[in-house]
């Protein structure tokens, strides 16, 4: 006999109350990152170490700026989901786990937003 209420069963959110959200978002961002990563890796090798003008001219084009913002958005979110799993797997003292999870999430948002703003800044011409 199931201890779950019919409402709980139909919502399908399980004991974590978030259902398959974590899993699904990780896959969704992974899918988006397939083309973005290929583009990004080549750009990284091609555009770094060649001076300010080269990098800024490249980044200021709408295509580069748009793809870069998508990469940063999907990438940092994917990173946050992945680091969360690593922390949950290896840190077993509750307060340490909670502290690390909070710091990691704040850090991910800070670095991600700052990077996106930098791309917008370059795109808008400084």
């Amino acid at each position, binding site marked *: 006999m199931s201890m779950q209420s019919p409402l709980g069963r139909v919502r399908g959110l399980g004991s974590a109350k978030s259902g398959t959200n974590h899993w699904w978002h990780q896959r969704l961002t992974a899918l988006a990152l397939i083309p973005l990563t290929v583009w990004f890796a*080549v750009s*990284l090798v091609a555009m770094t170490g*060649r001076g*300010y003008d080269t990098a*800024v001219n490249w980044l200021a084009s709408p295509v580069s700026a748009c793809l870069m913002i998508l990469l*940063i958005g999907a990438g940092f979110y994917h*990173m946050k989901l992945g680091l969360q799993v*690593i922390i949950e797997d290896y840190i077993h003292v509750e307060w340490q786990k909670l502290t690390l999870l909070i710091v990691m999430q704040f850090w991910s948002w800070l*670095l991600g937003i*700052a990077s996106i703003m930098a791309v917008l800044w370059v795109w808008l011409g400084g």
Partner: protein
Amino acid sequence: MADINRPLSPHLQVYRPQITSILSIIHRATGFFLAVGTLLLAWWVISAGAGPAAYSSFDWFIDGWIGRLALLGFTFSLFYHLCNGIRHLFWDIGAGFELASVSATGWLVLIVSSGLTLLSWIVGYVMRGAL
């Protein structure tokens, strides 16, 4: 929790290394390495936004041998995590679970990610006009 010394499940050192387990470990390791590498990405775009003076120190670092080495590790991690991630996506739809194909796709991931790393550096250096 009561102070009981419960038995733990056997961990890494108990098992004979296999292509499946090694690749799984590398997947997590490259994922973590990529997370560290986001610092490089952030430094890149933020210094580009901050202006020529800030950008020149990033450019100096990334063009030096430590920077090149970090970038090589970063691009390999990108491609490895990408290829093995695609392997995971196939498992998610229930494909490729047979022992033979799990091991075959594992080797494929190693070969393809190394090849793509090399290819991206060739394409990148052609775009730099250096090749």
